[in-house]
């Protein structure tokens, strides 16, 4: 393939630089070049959300974002949720509410829920279901994922600094 392009962006707070073909998708850059295998590939057509990461304050499906679009971006993946050895309220809540089984959708679910709670800190059950509808799960039936997001929202509301 014709030439590569240098791209630098912030990944979980640290600046990273890669050389990529124009066609390379962000999910492959993250997984293959930057050793961040938390985001997963489930469909490569934007339907399943397993590859969801946060980019410039928005949830994006990294299987349909070109890495060259990410120059200068702030990218947050599941690996960046834990801060100073403390799990994010969402990580803790997914564990406590049994919001995961095989774990494959979990990184995408967590990242989508992370952004959802910034957009809407007190979502109703229906708002959570709607807000998470871009992320598929085959194991849980979503009920405990909804409970986990609700529990995390309550915890974050009680201690807003932790967000």
């Amino acid at each position, binding site marked *: 393939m014709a030439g590569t392009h240098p791209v630098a962006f912030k990944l979980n707070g640290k600046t990273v630089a890669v050389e990529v073909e124009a066609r390379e998708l962000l999910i492959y850059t993250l*997984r293959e070049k930057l050793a961040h*295998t938390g985001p997963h590939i489930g469909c490569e057509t934007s339907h399943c959300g397993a590859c969801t990461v946060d980019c410039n304050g928005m949830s994006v499906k990294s299987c349909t974002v070109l890495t060259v679009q990410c120059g200068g971006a702030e990218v947050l993946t599941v690996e960046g949720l834990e801060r100073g050895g403390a799990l994010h309220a969402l990580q803790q809540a*997914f564990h406590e509410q049994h919001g995961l089984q095989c774990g494959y959708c979990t990184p995408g679910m967590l990242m989508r829920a992370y952004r959802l709670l910034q957009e809407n800190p007190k979502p109703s059950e229906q708002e959570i279901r709607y807000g998470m509808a871009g992320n598929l799960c085959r194991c849980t039936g979503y009920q405990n994922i909804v409970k986990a997001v609700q529990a995390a929202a309550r915890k974050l509301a009680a201690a807003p600094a932790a967000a």
Partner: protein
Amino acid sequence: MGESAELTEREQKLQGLGTAMLRREDARFIRGQGTYIDDIKLEGMLFGAIVRSPYAHARITAIDKARALAMPGVVAVLTAEDLKPVKLHWMPTAGGDVQAVLADEKVCFQYQEVAMVLAQDRYAAYDGAALVEVEYEELPAIIDPQQALAPGAPVIREDIADRKEVGHGPRTHPNHIFTWEAGDKAAADAAFAGAAVTVREEILNPRVHPCPLETCGCVASFNKATGYLTVYVTSQIPHLFRTVLAMLSGIAESRIRVVGGDIGGGFGNKVPIYPGYVVATVASIVTGLPVKWIESRIDNLSTTGFARDYHCVGELAADRDGRIRGLRFSALADHGAFNSQVSASKLPAGLFSICTGSYAIPNAYCRVDAVYTNKAPGGVAYRCSLRVTEAVYLIERMMDVLAQKLGVDKAEIRRRNFVKPEQFPYTTALGWTLDSGAYHAALDKVLKAVDYEGLRREQAAKRADPNCPTLMGIGISTFTEIVGAGPTKVCDILGIGLFDSCDIRVHPTGAVIARLGTMSQGQGHATTYAQIIATELGLPASDIVIEEGDTDKAPYGAGTWGSRSTPVAGAAAAQAARKIRDKARKIAAHLLEVGEGDLEWEIDRFKVKGSPSQAKTMKEICMVAHTGNIPPGMEQGLNAVSYYDPPNLTYPFGAYLCVVDIDRFTGETHVRRFYALDDCGTRINPMVIEGQIHGGLTEAFAVAMGQQLPFDENGNHLGNSLLDYFVPTAMETPRWETDHTVTPCPHHPIGAKGVAESPHVGGIPCFSNAVIDAFAHLGVTHMDMPHSAWRVWQKCQALGVNKRAGS
């Protein structure tokens, strides 16, 4: 603190049976630190991309690799010609057939594997795959299994056209695979001949797909220097996988290591041995480099592990009061292009003969005819035991059909026919011995919880109101499952019995490692097995580590499918732990200088009867077992292995009720309520059980309401991406209400029966029964799945119920 409080505290500390212990496996998953197949990266690893057939049926006239090979990064292109020297262009299947690893002169289904391009990375591999030029001569395709058996139909499998038998019994047509029967046909026919009432319905279980979120894949790594082959793979059956690889490759089984890491959902899709695995393995042997092969979503939905495609006819004969006298069920099974259906050797149609359900049916006969079509092979059991969903769907639908014919309430018809509690163990007319059950109590509990009478009154009122915009339906399913395959006298794959195993090692400090022959795909084995062992050994579950899936470490077992982990490997865990406890008892008696019979077990220790202050805790015994202070002649250590061959399968059951409101103008179905009562015997972890039921019900909802793999008349796949194939989101998925009764399994060491598949098996007919019940007053007795808005609207349109009053 009183004595009972102290006992409770000690018991709670163990987090054993019955505790909603949080899952041990979560810690890595919530951090994105799981190790799934595509996370494996080995030095020098190549990526393999498969070139697939655009036609469902065609001869291959030429393959030109030149342009692909000229592509930068492409290392090799493998076709059937390249596999011939090692005789791996075809592979034997568990169903007694052979399957093309790479298409040999002919393709028999769309997306069939034709070549594999090996390249230095994924992008280069797919670039290369696009440049492999294959010339085809198209042949007429057969998509309908009925047409497959027509006289003069095109022969799909010319390679075996002359074979008289494929796996089971004589063939009647070149596209016929086998006929399998169970029961007494003459007795069933006689019951029909003399019956007051008979009903018959044609009922389809459409071709669907388990569609786990992670697709299938492997990394094969052959070390030329040592002759040692390591295969990392998304397999639900790592040990059988290794055995098959040894048989195929000729490499000694002891030199093959299969490693199943974290698996992103299986649901049956990850049971078979697929061509991609075999080609990747050969490619690694040939190149001496590790080779990764990962399916795309389209590959996954198109080629690996479909389910169902059972075209059934159900017939029941009954007395005038609705007591069933006879059952005749048959199925035409579309197995696709090769008979690589997952099945036990003696059970080519799986456990289909469980189709008498929860009912005492004196005369029964069932028959399955399997045929080839130009569709993908490799039929699996999608979140069920082999062909059990098909069987349970048929009986649970037919109960409703019979009720409607007789004008009897759909709960009442079931109550009249249930096997009664005092009849257990009950041997069905088709030969299964249902070990335990309490069907009436389960149904009654559900009916009371939802106010069934009130719901029926509401339904009657709505039916009487011409302006009511919705059609209300109430679905009931009172299913019995059959899981835990299985007794080796009945169940084997390739001659290997379907026992399972557990190897427990207790260390001096009381910390435990247990290894089992199963393979978790999200079921929480690391938690629940630890809880079983904690209760048996009196050591805390938090100190018990569970390992599965690495064939170099774990004892041999048949893996995780058919809800067999708890019924079989869970039993092995309890048995192995009991061997250890027996030895510990001897050590305790020695230390306390009493006879073994003077000791009694209490939670985590042996006490001297009548002298409770004299006791030795398990933790103390663990240390002593590694010293010289043990009974004379005893060996040190506190380890045990158990291989468990179950005496019978297990029969979890449940009573489900679903209420739907169907918009008669749009055909959209709203699930107002779904109440699921499950009886899985002894409950190990209520939290995990509930999670499994939520997931199984959601997959049932998916199958009933939207899933189908459709084809056009040329065999083109019409729905193989997540745009087309229905996977419910959080928006569509109903809220689930769960409940339970406990009827322990009498033949299982801890009384457990298995649970994860019940909600799928029992849920599908419950949804269908609800949707069809909404139309029952209009004379409708059956509608085939999926009950998508479009299909339901068509029914509304055909019945004229989508017209507004006065319009």
